[in-house]
């Protein structure tokens, strides 16, 4: 997937001179995950900026530049470090447009990787997207494939509002051709990646592939699962999810983040309200247990949600 993100950055910068990238070791080194590789050579140090280890200022610089006619794309090396950027994102970027009475917009993107799989431990594996979805004014996006990573990142950069673009580390290595002229997608639209009549599985990022694998397993007991790739977490595509529920009457939501107070809670809550009459079984969520992401191989493997957990969740919902 990282090649798609890299291409989206190349294409966006080539098309629009107001786009620039800023972050730690993103220029000369091409980024910790190589998402920004080649940008320095192509666009030079003015538009591809290695920053000091100052996450608050990096994010604030993006806010100020966005208010001054640019389209910054900042990288926060690990989502765990975005804890240092919260004022700038939540009190400044998110609110500027509304708080200033619609005078302007803050067209900026913060790209940041979340999730485990590297045994990087409790401070390098967190999935914190639910925080940003709670904040009016921020948009939150999480791709699941090279193709939608490209299309969503292009849309995020073109979007007039601040977007938190969350990239699952375990997906960076996923290969996949891109069409020669890949299209930008629309923010706010989810995608049915598998059709099914018996249960709706809502997922995003790394759990989309798990949900598809789970659907194949379930097929063997005659359960046809519909799998929805949320793509945009805020604003999320409630219409599509509700429409699917009205056909399947059961729903399971899966994400890598901690289950409690995670993104799945909002989707479940909405379906238990506007979708209540459609529900034939309990709404089941699949997520990480209530604990920090542990380091040891055995522990991290058990900690991260798996296709089997989704299968079990579906069975419980249908039971």
């Amino acid at each position: 997937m990282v090649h798609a993100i890299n291409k989206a950055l190349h294409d966006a910068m080539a098309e629009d001179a107001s786009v620039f990238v800023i972050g730690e070791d993103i220029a000369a080194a091409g980024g910790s995950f190589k998402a920004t590789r080649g940008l320095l050579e192509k666009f030079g140090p003015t538009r591809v900026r290695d920053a000091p280890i100052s996450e608050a200022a990096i994010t604030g610089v993006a806010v100020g530049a966005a208010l001054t006619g640019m389209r910054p794309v900042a990288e926060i090396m690990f989502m765990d470090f975005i804890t240092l950027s919260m004022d700038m994102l939540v009190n400044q970027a998110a609110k500027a447009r509304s708080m200033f009475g619609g005078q302007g917009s803050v067209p900026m993107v913060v790209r940041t990787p979340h999730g485990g799989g590297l045994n990087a431990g409790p401070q390098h594996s967190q999935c914190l997207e639910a925080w940003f979805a709670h904040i009016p004014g921020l948009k939150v996006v999480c791709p699941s494939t090279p193709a939608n990573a490209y299309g969503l990142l292009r849309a995020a950069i073109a979007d007039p509002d601040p977007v938190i673009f969350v990239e699952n580390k375990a997906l960076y290595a996923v290969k996949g051709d891109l069409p020669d002229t890949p299209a930008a997608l629309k923010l706010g639209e989810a995608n049915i990646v598998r059709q099914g009549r018996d249960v709706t599985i809502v997922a995003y990022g790394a759990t989309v592939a798990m949900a598809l694998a789970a659907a194949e397993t379930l097929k063997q007991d005659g359960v046809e699962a519909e799998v929805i790739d949320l793509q945009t977490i805020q604003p999320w595509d409630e219409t599509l999810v509700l429409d699917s529920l009205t056909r399947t009457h059961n729903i399971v939501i899966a994400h890598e983040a901690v289950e409690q107070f995670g993104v799945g809670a909002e989707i479940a809550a909405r379906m238990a309200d506007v979708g209540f009459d459609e529900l034939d079984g309990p709404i089941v969520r699949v997520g990480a247990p209530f604990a920090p992401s542990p380091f040891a191989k055995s522990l991290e493997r058990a900690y991260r949600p798996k296709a089997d957990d989704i299968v079990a969740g579906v069975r419980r919902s249908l039971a």
Partner: protein
Amino acid sequence: MDRKKIEELYHQMLLIRRAEEALQKLFADGAVPGFLHLSIGQEAVPVGVSSQLLERDTVSSNHRGHGHALAKGVGLEPFFAEILGKATGICRGRGGSMHVADLSIGMLGANGIVGAGLPITTGSALALKMQGEGHIAVVYFGDGALAEGVFHECMNMAALWSLPVLFVCENNGWSEFSPTERQLSASLERLAGAFGVSYLAVDGNDAIDVADSASRLIKPMRENPRPGVLECSTTRVRGHFEGDKQDYRESEEVAALGERDPIRKCRQALVAAGVPARWFEEKAAEIDAFIDGAVRAALAAPEPSINEITRDVYTNAELAP
């Protein structure tokens, strides 16, 4: 500095002073919602600095930002209307005193978060430098903000990248109810020096000095972008916010503030330059009438409609939940 310029400084300071005195009265009458931080006694700083700014230069401000906004050119009526929470406010009544902004003239906003203007301005300066038209970005902040980590991060970035940022510290000796010496163990001069950023200290209650020092820092920045620090020692005459009785301040200190009144100082300079008493009377009358009209219009304006609450959360409204 020639007399016309000084007259303009006087005019601007008096306008800000009278506007804040009007707000003070409106607050006492219960017409101002929320917190009101007045900058009475500090007018020389934004007026002196703004006298050196171009329309496309940007400024960001803090919680005590009325002077910064008016000096940059925010309209008086939308200014009052905002602070009174009216539909005709510059921010449609959604922001209030702590969020007055006018993006059309590069006023990037007052701010409710101490220190938050620093990175915003640093980013604005980066954008202006990339745009390459010789514009600069100014951030006004208080002595209290010097303790926030972003100050350090931004000084470093601005110096490292030679960004055209003017850091204007309004040092009034107080952070809320605490004197600076209980808040900060460093001097701004030595901090600026540590980053190799040029620094000037000035009597922040002398608009002419402020204007001169600002121009000494700003002129070279336009040719050859780099940051500068202007530390203005000034006087917070009122409480931290309206309603603060200032019982934590020595009465002598408060009494002595009048001595340092920036407007009086400027008037003395004008008198010395031969400006007649009549000019001051006419100026006062003109400004009072101007403010009267603006306040009356703002008071008469309607409150915002509640349908406005969820408006402008996103630019593309169709995406709002």
